């Protein structure tokens, strides 16, 4: 046993080292984007890349001067937030029905819902574009809210369904015995009990909607365009201005990154809810 101890220590060190390397590799693009956003265009292009440089806020100044950042940010907040709220309003009752009143076909319906995620978005681009055009909803935030909610719905329903399945049914029966109706049971018992899972589901939906680019680029031009559209607008017509592109990307990521950072405990707790119950 004693002979094993140095080996075990070495294994632990190697494991820690490997974790750090993986974490750095994953984090590196974000770090690089952040660093590049403070470089001059010249520094940004230099090869080999500079790690030491004199930082400048010039890129940010220029972006804020050229585009109305707050307009895009507000659109992102409205579309991502709206999609999250709409998605939760639909997903919670749906997951409740799937989890507590299953039928013979419940598993099939759940799988079918998930299978829609396998359809590439571009496959339905034309019909959805035409529907939006006919409903006069091109370049409208409402269209994005509905579409974001719909594309996230399968994952939301699945996640919430899994959390609900982990909650002992006895608790809901106890609430019924105590005189609670379906809505009271849902709002006063089920939702408070599963709030960790619901919060992480909502957060995931918020992040996915915030980062969604395909539909925002194809269905919006200016008035409803979110931050992803702003980032894209800096890439094509101007040629490759890495520093400005990095700056605008940083501005686009920052809010959601901060939100994710602040709620990481909740997020992890929610994702491992079943394990720590």
């Amino acid at each position: 046993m004693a002979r094993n101890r140095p080996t075990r220590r070495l294994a632990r060190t190697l494991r820690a080292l490997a974790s750090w390397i993986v974490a750095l590799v994953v984090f590196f693009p974000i770090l690089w984007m952040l660093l590049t956003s403070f470089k001059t265009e010249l520094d940004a292009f230099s090869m080999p890349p500079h790690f030491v440089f004199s930082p400048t806020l010039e890129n940010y100044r220029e972006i804020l001067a050229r585009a109305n950042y707050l307009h895009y940010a507000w659109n992102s907040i409205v579309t991502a937030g709206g999609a999250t709220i709409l998605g939760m309003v639909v997903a919670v009752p749906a997951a409740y029905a799937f989890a507590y009143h299953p039928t013979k076909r419940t598993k099939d319906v759940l799988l079918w819902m998930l299978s829609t995620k396998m359809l590439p978005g571009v496959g339905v681009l034309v019909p959805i574009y035409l529907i939006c055009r006919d409903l006069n909803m091109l370049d409208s935030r409402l269209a994005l809210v509905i579409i974001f909610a719909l594309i996230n719905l399968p994952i939301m329903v699945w996640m919430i369904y899994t959390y609900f399945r982990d909650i002992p049914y006895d608790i809901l029966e106890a609430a019924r015995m105590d005189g609670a109706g379906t809505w009271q049971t849902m709002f006063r018992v089920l939702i408070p009990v599963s709030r960790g899972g619901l919060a992480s589901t909502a957060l995931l939906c918020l992040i996915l909607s915030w980062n969604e680019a395909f539909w925002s680029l194809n269905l919006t031009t200016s008035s409803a365009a979110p931050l992803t559209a702003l980032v894209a607008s800096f890439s094509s017509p101007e040629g490759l201005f890495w520093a400005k592109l990095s700056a605008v990307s940083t501005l686009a990521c920052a809010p959601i990154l901060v939100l994710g950072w602040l709620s990481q405990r909740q997020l992890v707790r929610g994702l491992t809810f079943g394990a720590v119950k």
Partner: protein
Amino acid sequence: MSRLEIRSLRKSFEGTDVIKGIDLVIEDREFCVFLGPSGCGKSTTLRLIAGLEEVDDGQILLDKDDITDRAVDKRDLAMVFQSYALYPHMTVRENMSFALKLAHKDQRSIDEKVARAAKILALEPYLDRKPSALSGGQRQRVAIGRAITREPRVFLFDEPLSNLDAALRAQTRLEIARLHQELNATMIYVTHDQVEAMTLADRIAIFSEGRIEQVGTPLELYRRPVNRFVAGFLGMPQMNFLAATAVDGELRLGNGNLLHLPTCIDATGDLTVGVRPEHLRVCDEGDGSGETLNGKLTVVERLGSETYAYVDVPQVGSITVRADGDFERRAGRDICIRLDLTHAHVFDATGAAIHHP
């Protein structure tokens, strides 16, 4: 008044009959225990009474009031679940007052009822704690407290002690008995533990395969079981069942021994003699009469206050004998046992009792 009457109750799940026609009357203020092995339908019957399952056929009457199809929350019953089923996000106080708040009771009467229940169950120091900060026994008491504050017409307990360890189970059992005396309420209690049933019940209903086998006071069931199932289910260790054939009103065991029962048996064919372990005793050597059996001691279980000796009797089978705590013989030895036939039961081929002590 809370008298519960069940008439021809039936329930099936996906084509399988689970409750096959149950008739039972539970009198006002009675403590009735549903006892049976797992899967016998006792919990389902309780859930049908509670309204948590829909009745297929039959009636449930509460004081002659038909509640068969009444919504769960309109039945005025309270249930204590095996898993406690406390609301984990609420404090003990909130757990106990939840039903009253839903019923829009005024805050003062809610506080009074919670305080009273907390006092009865010694939960006062824990009122502001969450269930996760309580021990298993305390959680169980909160679950009971939640039922008490409701002041229901009937209390339903679904195996409430099975998640507790042995010591706590014995203690909580006493508390439930005390609670019944104190509240003087009608209680229905489901368990598979015969000790709980024997100690708590005014009357026990023994369930098997979706039917009630027998209803009676604990001692009635113990002394005069109507069939082999009831006889075997009650009693620890189990009653000994010896295969026998009736010969001219007497019984012949597999090894040829003739048993002289106090009364004549009016039956023929294959029968079973039932003798409880406490009605057998170890003797030094056979006196030649039919009531003594020679065998080999296979296992000895010493519990301190008493000893269970398992004896293998050729052509008769394994027989359990309850002996004194100071029983000294070792396994592997030859041994002689004597049946006390004044306490023997006889069952016919269908298992029905045809002779009682």
